[in-house]
């Protein structure tokens, strides 16, 4: 594994002003994400992990601090630049899949490849997540796990540098969740995209190179796994 940092976040702060109260979601987070690594962000609800992921993905802005993506400071980026950034470099996977119901699996992937610079073929991306035989199904014809795998295929079809997954198994039972994690694990290994998976499920941490524990808007500690476990061996 190379040690090139894809992301380098320094003193990232995020607060929300709710009337007279200021809620701190992030209180000066320092973190790196390295090329090709699999990182799991672990922490309870409200620990700030989703906020951090949204800032890394260009969906939200930090209140203070810097986030450098390959020399590009996304905290200073304009909205147009952020759109371009998401379009070219970031793959997202969400808890509730967020597929376009009116498009088939293949077309959902194509919706992204059509606007990407150097995408893979949509069918190839679906093959990668094991859905080559379901390409022409609409989301309503797919199970939750299958929908989430389509979402993964859609996220990686543009060959992103980073893959950000927010509770990808949150809406799934454990068996289906493991199939989804396998897909994430596979694309991480095969495409080498730096991957960050958010979860509050400690059992998932085993599949990571690095586990970042968050609590109260801060990184509490970081642990490194000697061996990444195969998701198939995980249980919860």
């Amino acid at each position, binding site marked *: 594994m190379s040690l090139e940092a894809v992301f380098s976040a320094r003193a990232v702060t995020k607060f929300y002003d709710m009337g007279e109260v200021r809620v701190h979601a992030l209180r000066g987070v320092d973190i790196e994400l390295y090329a090709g690594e699999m990182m799991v962000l672990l922490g309870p609800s409200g620990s700030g992990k989703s906020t951090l992921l949204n800032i890394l993905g260009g*969906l939200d802005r930090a209140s203070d601090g810097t986030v450098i993506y390959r020399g590009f400071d996304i905290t200073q980026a304009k909205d147009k630049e952020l759109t371009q950034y998401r379009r070219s470099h970031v793959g997202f996977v969400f808890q509730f899949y967020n597929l376009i119901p009116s498009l088939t699996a293949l077309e959902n992937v194509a919706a992204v490849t059509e*606007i990407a610079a150097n995408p893979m073929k949509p069918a190839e991306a679906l093959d990668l997540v094991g859905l080559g035989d379901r390409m022409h199904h609409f989301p*309503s014809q797919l199970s939750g796990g299958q929908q989430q795998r389509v979402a993964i295929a859609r996220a990686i079809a543009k060959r992103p540098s980073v893959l950000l997954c927010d509770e990808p198994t949150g809406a799934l039972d454990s068996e289906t969740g493991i199939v989804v994690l396998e897909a994430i694990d596979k694309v991480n290994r095969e495409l080498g995209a730096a991957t960050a998976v958010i979860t509050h499920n400690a059992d998932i941490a085993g599949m990571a190179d690095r586990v970042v524990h968050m609590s109260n808007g801060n990184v509490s500690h970081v642990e490194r796994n000697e061996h990444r476990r195969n998701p198939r061996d995980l249980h919860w």
Partner: protein
Amino acid sequence: MRALDIKLFRDLWAVRGQVIAISFVLAGGIATYVMAASTLDSLRRTQARLYREFRFPELFAGLKRAPESVAARVAAVPGVAAVETRVVAPANIELAGYEQPVSGQVVGLPRGQGRFNLLHLHAGRLPEAGRDREALVSDGFAKAHKLHPGFSLQVTINGRKQRLDVVGVASTPEFIYQLAPGSIVPDFKTYCVVWMNAAPLEGSFNMTGAFNQLAATLERDTRVDDAVMAVDHILRPYGGLGSHGRKDQISHRYLSEEFKQLTIMATMFPVIFLSVAAFLLNVVVGRLMATQRSQIATLKAFGYSTAAVAWHFLKFTAVIVVIGTALGIAGGAWMGGGLSRLYMDVYRFPYLDYSIREGVLLVSFAVSIAAAGTGTLFAVLKAAGESPAVAMQPANPGRYRRSLFESKWMSQPTRMIIRNIERRPVKSLLSIGGVAMSTAILILGGFWGDAVDYMVFAQLRRAQLDDITVTFFGPVSTRALHSLTSLPGVTYAEPTRSVAARFRFEQKTYRTALQGMEPEGRLRLLLNTKLERVELPADGILLTDHLATMLGVRPGQMLTVELLEGSRAVREVVVAGVVSEYIGVSAYMRRDALNRFLREGDSATGAFLAVDSKLVPELYARLKKIPAVAGSAARAQALQSFYETLAAQMLTFALFNTLLASTIAIGVVYNTVRISLSERSRELASLRVLGYTRGEVAYILLGELTVLVFLAIPLGLLVGHGLAYFMATTAQTELFRVPFVIEPSTYALAALVVAVATVISAFMVGRKINHLDLVEVLKARE
């Protein structure tokens, strides 16, 4: 329920744009109804009140001359309650400083207390007894010339000119609607009613101790026709012109016809508008409620009953209903007031009893509540019928399928647009229907203007080609025509003979003028619907198409024609054909044939003149000096007064309706796209997250809107065409028929308004797309 009520207001505030847009749709429909109903009600009430207060009689008779003693015989007719006689003389009037001749009639005031047609004095006072030169003038004339008591007029009665000093301005129910001889629309500048003491008028008109007009009231339950027969029998030896009830009294008849016209407009516009608004309200509220699905489920999960939830959302709708109805009533009352005042300019009502009946308000609220209530209940009950657990699950992706209309070259966003439209055909059809209906009502407003323009074009530019129409006091020998031709500026003159006649076919009768025309006439053309000339037959008569329809007679059938003057001959005449006329109803035959029918020589009661426009002032100056001339109507002026009076009323009405239709159109389009945004914000935000630009996301939403609007506009034009046709065929009165003419510009304008509404809505919603909260929509399930 307090917390829920707070939620209600916050929710309303959150969708305030839509609340306002829906309120406007509703207000547009309600305003049309309130405007029309209140105007019609007010005019009818005012008319009824005037008739009562100023004692409008029920039977009218004109005659040549009868001694005063005859009145007692009429009073003795069974069923006749009271009788009053008087002398009325046609007159030529000159007003110092006004170039055109003014025609009018001089009415003798009753000696002592009058029984009928009491005067409403607008200014000044009544002529004093024994003051022979004192007179009153009609308020329309005084207003048109901005005159106040204290001026004088030169009035020529029976060839004798005299000065009258105007001491007051008055109006009465018998002259609410005033028409000069030879005119088709009121022109207050060139027509005047003068009242003066009876004695001097009788003197100058050689009528001392006699009368030529009689009015009567009838006892309850008396049939007018019976009284008319008995009175006609008594008056026939005295040159009776045929008596009649209110139905045939000129002012009343025109007023009734105009009210009929207004009733049609005031019924059809609101019925169409209100149905459209109610339909749209129903759809829009239903869809707005459908976006509250998760809230409804959540409330149910808390333990609220379905009834409580439905009640909560009904309150939500109630706010829209109250705002929309209140706006509609206020706007309708404001426009109704303005419209009524416009009518008052033509109808010489001394006052207007403007009011809105409670019934109108009740109907307004009932329609709003029914439309919004059913829309709400339907959507809420559907959502509340689902188990609350459904709302706890991730939203099920909607079922979609491939569309027939897509090709493999399409981009995914285009595919989304097409599949989305196809997937919910009912929703798409309702959106298309809503936009189409608002396009249609826009055409309905514009159609009226086109119809009026065409009416004027056909009647005053194709059929009536004379510059000035001269009317004589009675039949004159056509030798008098030669003297007309020698007048300054007159290049050509064509005689015409007009006589009052009663037409009978089977059980139906109708009283109007029978006009004798020159067979090869150049100044008055009889035209068919294609504006081609219809030749006058050597034998037989031509009828205005509407008259033929009213009588139920077809060309080739025999019609009984009873002349009401001169020979009073009754004859069976063949209907040779019909002519298309949009204003008034008449019958035509060759003048020589009419002269023979009247058993008279070559004579005329009027002439059509072609005039060199530069010499018109001199011509007028000379016409004023010719005693036989009762009136002269200029075509240009007729055109002008038509636009100023009848057309102004109709066009104002139509303009208001166009404005309301635009309001409805904008409200509908905005809501369609706004709700679409709420329904799809999650999907659109997901695409933004995936790296779609704002423009690319807007394309999906607005592309769908554009497709719907593009489908809706042609449909709307078609529906508008149909509605206008329906209105034209329904709006047929004796006064005028509305031709079915829609100019391309009207279609274009309707389409343009909808297109502009779409662009504005797209712009407003586009701004909302820019502010989609990417993080928030990803968290929410719906």
